[in-house]
């Protein structure tokens, strides 16, 4: 009887895994994988009435809530700019927001919600593990989706999703850039790499190992520590104590800012003084808030161009409009990429002459003159953005970023 009780308890526990987390996204009918070829919805044609609706799936709540809110604000500012210029094909652009709560489970629900509303073009989403299940659903239902904060190589290279694009760059560029920086610029002899066991963090870490290998084989450097932490926890002292004992020159953390902030704070507290390198999702105001200004002084950050360093005429116009509304600039480049996802979709819709997903997807691949806030909006056949450069940034003692050499 006791055993039955315990089995029951564990069953309840497992069930609560699904029920325990807040899921603000309205759970619509469960996605049925068989319904792909059949018409997904009774075609409510949302484009009628002089409006083009574009979905935005973003982490409005959960661990990446800050990113989600910036993305929403950026997309709304970009939509206002487009509408002020007369909209797309003479129609006004309207944004429909769905919250994916920063996790893959709610991501599928949010995607289903937007699909069942009959949207044909969506912007989705932040976080590679969060984006993947949504991208699958959009693809199955022939909805064009454009990722903005998802840089894992696997998203476009593991399988072909004909309706998936992204305005962000790809992580192998970043990892290659890191290996060069660590060994050639910084001269690190002992490198520690810590990731979070998710698509994005693990992908960057694995690629970093790949690009470090020639240096390791040549004996110029060695990787003394390579392990993962569990995101969502608060105490990483076990991993940090171990890293401290190995005494590396450089600690490369590849995951998201909530954990990065704790890691650098706890590492400095434990007396680790080595160079800290954060990857492209780390440098945000939230990272500064969690870690504290003292802990991040001198920390290096890898990133695609940060919003404050964008110099295109489109970027100036956008950032001015954003600043006028919110009195600050967007907290990360990913939110700006979300705005560029809208710009790309609008350019493709204009080129395709309508919102038909097949024509829009074809237009995304072939357009050559679309200009966004972050430069030319050009995509490869697999949906990757072309020509994204990488830079190194450094935090000063006030928690401000500047370009590092």
């Amino acid at each position: 009887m006791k055993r039955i009780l315990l089995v029951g308890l564990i069953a309840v526990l497992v069930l609560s895994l699904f029920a325990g987390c807040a899921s603000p996204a309205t759970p619509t009918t469960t996605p049925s994988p068989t319904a792909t070829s059949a018409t997904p919805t009774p075609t409510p044609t949302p484009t009628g009435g002089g409006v083009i609706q574009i979905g935005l799936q973003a982490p409005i709540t959960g661990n990446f809530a800050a990113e989600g809110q910036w993305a929403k604000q950026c997309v709304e500012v970009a939509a206002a700019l487009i509408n002020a210029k007369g909209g797309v094909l003479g129609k006004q652009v309207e944004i429909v927001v769905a919250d994916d709560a920063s996790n893959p489970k709610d991501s599928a629900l949010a995607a289903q919600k937007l699909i069942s509303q009959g949207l044909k073009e969506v912007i989705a989403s932040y976080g590679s593990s969060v984006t993947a299940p949504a991208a699958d659903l959009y693809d199955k239902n022939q909805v064009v989706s454009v990722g903005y904060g998802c840089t894992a190589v696997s998203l476009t290279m593991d399988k072909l999703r004909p309706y998936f694009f992204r305005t962000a760059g790809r992580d192998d560029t970043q990892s290659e850039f890191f290996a060069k920086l660590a060994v050639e610029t910084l001269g690190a002899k002992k490198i520690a790499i810590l990731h979070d066991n998710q698509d994005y963090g693990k992908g960057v870490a694995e690629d970093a190992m790949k690009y470090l290998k020639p240096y390791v084989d040549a004996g110029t450097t060695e990787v003394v520590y390579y392990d993962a932490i569990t995101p969502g926890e608060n105490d990483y002292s076990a991993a940090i104590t171990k890293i401290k004992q190995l005494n590396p020159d450089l600690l490369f953390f590849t995951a998201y800012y909530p954990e990065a902030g704790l890691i650098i704070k706890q590492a400095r507290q434990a007396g680790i003084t080595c160079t800290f390198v954060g990857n492209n999702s780390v440098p945000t105001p939230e990272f500064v808030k969690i870690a504290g200004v003292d802990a991040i002084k001198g920390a290096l950050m890898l990133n695609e161009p940060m919003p404050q360093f964008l110099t295109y005429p489109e970027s100036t116009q956008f950032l001015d409009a954003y600043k006028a509304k919110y009195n600050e600039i967007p907290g990360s480049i990913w939110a700006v990429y979300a705005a560029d996802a809208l710009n790309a979709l609008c350019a493709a819709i204009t080129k395709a002459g309508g919102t038909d997903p097949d024509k829009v997807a074809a237009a995304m691949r072939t357009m050559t003159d679309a200009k966004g806030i972050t430069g030319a909006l050009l995509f490869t056949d697999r949906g990757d953005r072309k020509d994204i450069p990488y830079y190194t940034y450094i935090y000063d003692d006030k928690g401000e970023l500047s370009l590092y050499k």
Partner: protein
Amino acid sequence: MSVFFEQLLNGLTIGSFYALVALGYSMVYGVMKLINFAHGDLFTLGSYLGYTVLVVGAGWVTATFGVWGGMAVAMLAAFLGIAVAGILLERIAYRPVYKAGRLPLVVSALGMSIFIQNGIMAIWGPRFQAYPMTAVPKEIITIGDIRITALQLFILLLALALMALIYWLVEKTTFGAAVRAAALDKDTATLMGINFRQVIFFVFALGPALGGIAGVMTGLNYGRIIFNMGWVYGLKAFTATILGGIGNIPGAMIGGLLLGILETLFAGYVSSAWKDVFIFLVLILVLIWRPTGLIGEKTAEKV
């Protein structure tokens, strides 16, 4: 060797958080036979109450009472606030469905968990909040090669003291005997003149209140808090409760501390990526060997 001791201290710190939260699970389960799924969210609520006390009026509390005084005020506020919240929770969500059996109780608990979590999000927002750095002592104590922050030491000692206090209260006092009797057999205990209402009141005030204090400690020690953090702690503390033996007060403490130490040592010496796998493997093995937990109740199930 000093690395080992440092890891042991890390484990004890994590473990004492688990143990404090686990106590609340275990006390409620012992008396009500209910897994209070809202417990982890009361822990979060405690953390946010402490945060509010420390940030209100630009750190007025810290400025007036000093760093340690401010921390004491924050913890006291969370303790009292969450005690009240626990009592309210029982009144609103559990008492009306208590007679309907276990399943409605569990569903009600899950509902309250979602309600509290979303309530916190509605009040304090969905983004991370950070405890003010000025409200936290910065001293670092060095013994040989071992570094420990004064705050960590304080948290460890306070947690152990609280656990000792609860142990004494439940195992050594007359009132504690009443609580244990009510846990053993509610009807007979009532016939013997034990006020069951009073026992429930005690359990629902003190259990969540301990979680509330643990919430403030978490905020002070790690800095960042978010509305859904109760989930991770709730899950781990629940595991600790099962490991030690649910419904058993010393079991919850030992389960919590053991869980913290095991996961830290595994992360420190084997792999931090696989530590949760290891923990749940240990849990499964313990349950096969002792289905009632390490020091679970020896009473036979009433059928």
